[in-house]
């Protein structure tokens, strides 16, 4: 293994200073970063371990009704927080549909947001990859790209962002709090991840040294608790990334949809907020036809980037299903097979 420095800053300020140096990266639980280092994909000179920083592992309800989740809260702790799961059920369901129990116990909120793509060519250092090495080319474009992007891709990169967690978060207008060299700032999660354009080497809008300290859900996010679902189609029942996923959240008033939130996962380099589709549903009765129309709108701009045309049709169907499930109401308990099309199977064991 490449030798590197390991630093454990005592304060956020120290962390930012240490990570602003060239070749430095933050280490959270390492469930993604260490794999990348073992594969030689990431070869940092310095790891800045943030897991010992104080004050980043809390879940707080703020006076204005928003919720602030520290960057170091583990995926499992967040999903199993009773108040959180009740208020933001689609987010909890998405978290529990990701990875495996062991990984969720370790993985952090900040790390989940900033996990890298699972594009196999990105992981394979013998392949050309613009994201790994700017300007080297993209071997996925003409390669094995069945699971690659159908929205927002460019000729430079057709990779997807793999996070489940981010999909309902972006639907709920989550905000990311960042500590950087110039102090504290915040941005919409929707603005955090970048589409590839001509510079796929930059995954996010973060600058060197920027540390995610928290994710905030605004007060309105709670309004969807009664009608919110996450649905994830994958190639085995558990422990697999989404082929396509969707988070759907509705506010229903007097039998009509007052507001919709819809986002898709596994189809673009960022969690994909489908605002046009949301608008279509404004004020209408939740019917199959309306959901079909929304699904159609959500995918109008989609085009295959390879052997993946099926993902467009699959995404439409997932949108319809997720909206239908959301309209039917959030179940009292998160299903034993979270976000699974088989969630209704009785006798299932929690995964």
């Amino acid at each position, binding site marked *: 293994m*490449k030798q590197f420095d390991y630093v454990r800053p005592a304060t956020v300020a120290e962390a930012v200073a240490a990570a602003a140096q060239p070749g430095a990266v933050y280490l959270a639980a390492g469930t993604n970063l260490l794999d990348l280092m073992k594969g030689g994909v990431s070869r940092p000179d310095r790891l800045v371990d943030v897991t010992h920083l104080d004050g980043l592992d809390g879940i707080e309800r703020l006076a204005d009704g928003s919720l602030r989740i520290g960057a170091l809260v583990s995926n499992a702790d967040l999903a199993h927080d009773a108040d959180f799961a009740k208020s933001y059920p689609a987010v909890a369901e998405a978290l529990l549909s990701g990875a495996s129990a062991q990984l969720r116990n370790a993985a952090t909120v900040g790390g989940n947001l900033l996990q890298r793509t699972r594009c196999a060519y990105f992981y394979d250092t013998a392949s050309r990859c613009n994201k790994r090495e700017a300007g080297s080319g993209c071997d996925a474009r003409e*390669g094995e790209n069945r699971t690659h992007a159908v929205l927002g891709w460019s000729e430079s990169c057709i990779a997807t962002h793999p996070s489940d967690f981010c999909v309902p978060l972006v639907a709920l207008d989550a905000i990311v709090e960042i500590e950087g060299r110039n102090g504290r700032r915040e941005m919409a999660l929707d603005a955090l991840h970048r589409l590839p354009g001509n510079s796929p080497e930059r995954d996010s809008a973060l600058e060197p040294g920027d540390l995610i300290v928290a994710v905030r859900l605004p007060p309105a996010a709670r309004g969807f608790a009664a009608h919110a679902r996450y649905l994830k189609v994958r190639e085995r029942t558990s422990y697999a990334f989404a082929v396509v996923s969707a988070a759907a959240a509705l506010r229903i008033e007097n039998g009509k949809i007052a507001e919709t939130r819809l986002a898709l996962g596994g189809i673009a380099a960022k969690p994909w907020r489908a605002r046009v589709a949301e608008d279509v549903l404004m004020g209408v009765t939740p019917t199959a036809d309306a959901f079909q129309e929304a699904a159609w709108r959500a995918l109008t701009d989609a085009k295959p980037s390879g052997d993946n045309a099926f993902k467009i049709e699959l995404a439409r169907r997932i949108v319809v299903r997720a909206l239908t499930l959301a309209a039917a109401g959030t179940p009292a308990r998160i299903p034993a097979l979270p976000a699974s099309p*088989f969630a209704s199977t009785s006798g299932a064991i929690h995964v």
Partner: protein
Amino acid sequence: MSELNLTSAPTHLRHGSSIGQPLTRRDGILKVKGQATYAADNHPPGMLFAVMAVSSIAHGRVTSLDVAAAKRHPGVVDVMTPDHKPRLAIDPEIKTNPFVFRMEVLQSNEVRYANQPIAVVIAETLEAATEGAVLLAPRYETLPALIGLDAGESYVPPVVGVGNPTENHRGDVEAGLASAGKQIDSIYETPPQYHNAMEPHAIVAAWNGDSLQIDMPTQGLMLSLGRIAELFGIAPDKIHIRSPFLGGGFGSKGLMSGPPTLGIMAAKLVGKPVKLVLRREQMYGPVGHRAPTRQRLRIGADGEGRLTALDHHARTVSSTFDDFYEPAADASHTLYAAPAIRTSHDAVRVNTGTPLFMRAPGEATGSIALESAIDEMAWTCGIDPLAFRLKNYAEVEPITGKPFSSKALRACYEQGAARFGWSKRSLQPRQMRDDAGLLVGWGMGTATFPALMFQAEARAVLRRDGSGAMEIGAHDMGQGAWTALAQIAADELGLDIDRVEFKAGSSDLPDAGIAGGSAHTATAGAAIHSAGAAVIAKLADLATNDERSPLFGAGNAGVIARDGRLIRRDDESRSESYPEILARAGVAEVEARGTGAPNPAAMEEYAMHAHGAVFAEVKVDPELGQVRVTRMVGAFAAGRIVNPHLVKSQLFGGMIWGMSFALHEEAITDRRSGRIMNANLGEYHIPVNADVPPLDVITVEEHDPHVNALGIKGVGEIGITGSAGAVANAVWHATGIRVRRFPIKIEELLT
């Protein structure tokens, strides 16, 4: 392995015999406590770590390696390359016997497949060796790679599998097809699959002068030993291999491959013990895999649904430098009574490691295609798939006309179908839904696997203190040899299992033959059986020839051994304990050897196979195409069941692998570079717990007087066969969509 502290907590009632009892595995407590020593757990003093650098191209040559950079890295001791390595005694390209396959041990700078070892870095720590391997930064001259089933001109290989004829026929297939009222002609594809045993290949090698101590998981101690002796030019008795436990083998640890050979070379180069363990992704190349196949099945049936012809052709691949051909079409030899059968194979060469044995090689790939085709044929004839199979039940082996040594397949069909509730199945597909609206489908497949035997020897000892020992270099790959073979030993020695010291897993013990072909329990069991009989005969001689013994004059045939005593057969009141006999004779112990081997006369006369019937239920989301298996029942007849508990686990494992074959497993090869893009357990999908439904295994009673003295047929591989087809057929029954390319993917089911 006297340091092994095996347990045999009697969770069972004995009925005077160990064989047939569901003992829990005797090495189980060691394993759960982490005390079972696997090869890579050994750390002899002074040991160094070796890490392979592997090729990222599939074809070409290595033009440069930055050895200096690697050596400069702190902790790196040496770098083994084609220019700097110990000499081997023979060229590794020479095939000295049919069980020798070519390996890459730095004999040249040529690259024949991706992930081929191209150098080995030896260092004081694993981390330093790993970084050293990166620093080699190999450069290549890349040549176009041959990839996939249409990579080039096809040819007919001389043999398939291990010496099977490439083509077989009986009757006139074309006439049979021409006369058929109903026909199908379908093409199925199966993908390359790679070994992912929990324990990767590993070796700890230590030279002491010209003798060699090795810790290495192997399914073939003596084959490995012979190959190492030949490669390094040392006498076999200078080599000691310990392999008490394997973390799974499945065919990949049967024959000596390149990586462990490199470990031995590295130890020789640096003059210190060396450990070399493959990284998960390095398993995808030099240690064998299941070749892809494309199989065409043409089947004809008459108006009654009786087969008129069965034509099964399989295209497969081998490497560019060696020959192994997945004998997929041979699956059609034994199951269905077609009057005309033809099986044939052809192949193309591709830039991969040589495909080799992987659990049920040929049977697994052939079975999913055959069972899917039989299902298609049943549907074409409008007949229930079970009824169709019964209509075409083979009373004699179809391809040879030989009678079966035993065949309880009818009982398997009956008991499996009853347990599953098959009679309620709708003939038409896409008829059943569950409460949640998911499509439900039921499918079945027939399982079969040959009852093979190899050669083995065992040594039995009876001691004056009333204990016994049985020594045999048998292999426990997790299947339970430490338990099942000890059960046989106990019975053959007439002792309680706790009084028998059972020794296995070491090359200084008698040769147990290879643990493959589902033949290990039968082969090693037969050797134990004859060694036990021989030592009891010696003991009986001591007693029956001695006037002072109550057994005097009974003659060898006149005594039986039970509970540590010899007993007169015709008068059970007259008996004597083993210690009494040995003490009076003034000997500390008696010992004898025995062998196990196939019986050529019986093989000539009978077809010998295990059979089974597997029933599966799947649910499919009608719009989203995701599939989940919700129930499986397998009924298997495999001769005598030595330990029902372990056998059940073997069959469960096989059935899960079958479902994995139908729905999950596939190595994704980049169509241009020939590199495998999902060489890790995150993306090379095998079922996880949530995929595995309640499984129900029935072992059907079967007595086979011909296979071997103990009537054992073997259960290691049969579970995959039938199961894969059952799941695929259930998917069809759920959806009405016949997917012929495996694994079945979501997009195929989006209608």
